[in-house]
């Protein structure tokens, strides 16, 4: 099942944006996420999807687009 709705919910909770970013839009290049909202996004994803994201998985590129976030979460949630 798509996780995009949950990911968008977290993005809107941590970033001050109006619309939904496109699935392959860079959240960093667009200014949606920065150094200080990225940690909030990770914490939000952990709470929303009930996963624990280890420090070793905290690679910024992994959270750059909605598709990349979804792929990462799919790898964590069977």
């Amino acid at each position, binding site marked *: 099942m798509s996780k995009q709705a949950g990911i968008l919910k977290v993005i809107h909770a941590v970033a001050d944006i109006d619309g939904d970013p496109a699935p392959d839009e860079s959240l960093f290049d667009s200014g949606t996420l*920065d*150094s*200080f909202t*990225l*940690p909030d996004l990770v914490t939000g994803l952990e709470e929303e999807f009930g996963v624990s994201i280890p*420090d070793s998985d*905290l690679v*910024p590129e992994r959270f750059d687009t909605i598709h990349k976030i979804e792929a990462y979460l799919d790898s964590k949630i069977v």
Partner: protein
Amino acid sequence: MAFLRAFGAYLPPDIVTNVDVAASTGKDAAAIERATGIRERRYAANGVTVLDLGVAAAQDCLAKAKLPADEIGLILFSSGSTERSFPGPASSLAAKLGLTTVPVIDLPIASAGSLVGIALAAELALRYGNILIVASEIMSRCITFEDPDTAILFGDGAGACIVSRDSGFARIVDHALHTDGNYAESLSLAHGGTLHMVGLEVILQATRKIPRAIADLLSKHGLTPGAAAHYLMHQANLNLIRKVAIALKVPEEKFFVNIDAYGNTSSASLLIAAAEWHTANQNPNGPIVLAAFGAGFSWGAVLAVPVP
């Protein structure tokens, strides 16, 4: 047993405001303050060295401790911005203080070196008595305005601390030091190069690792984060300090902050903050936590309790 005996600091007089930095970087001055909490920083004048700043901070610290230099048993000198590869400034600092047989150790651990120095001093005080820890940085010569996001953060300055075997205002209870070299490239300064910092990685890891190190250290001693009265952190960015406070569920007011006046002075910042904090808090009213995160990545925390 080991005690925090005194702190000292020295800041070069030349003030560089956000308006000044904005002119060099194209950034907006108000946006710099919003993003970092920094209003101004100090830059060392041409010809002034890391050693010069360190000597001034050491002398301030010795004066506050009312300790003659010849009663120092060991010197630890932290700097990631030294002018040469070797020898580091520790031996020259000893010579400037008139100490020609006292052992010294240089700690080239940007941002976290002073915390590492205090932790090592706590372990070595039994053997060496009074240990002088100095952290001095001239970051303004390591930055390039071609990387404005990094350049806006940094300033120059020096701090110092004396850890003593016999007496002080707070007893060092314990410390926790950690390093993960997988992130060595995320914060680095090559010979002859400029500071390379991947801000996304630094902040992402720091916001997790600092609160965990603090909470684990406190828990080991039966304390919650709320039980600590004073938090002294490496002054990297006001937003990072706030995130650590939120993660620990501790009021932000317990965290001493002076990044607004000096910017990020790398490893010197913890001791500069500690010096200003102690001047305003001669009689701390509860456990003191010192914490830092820096190159390596290296991070950790020190726990001290006031002496009645």
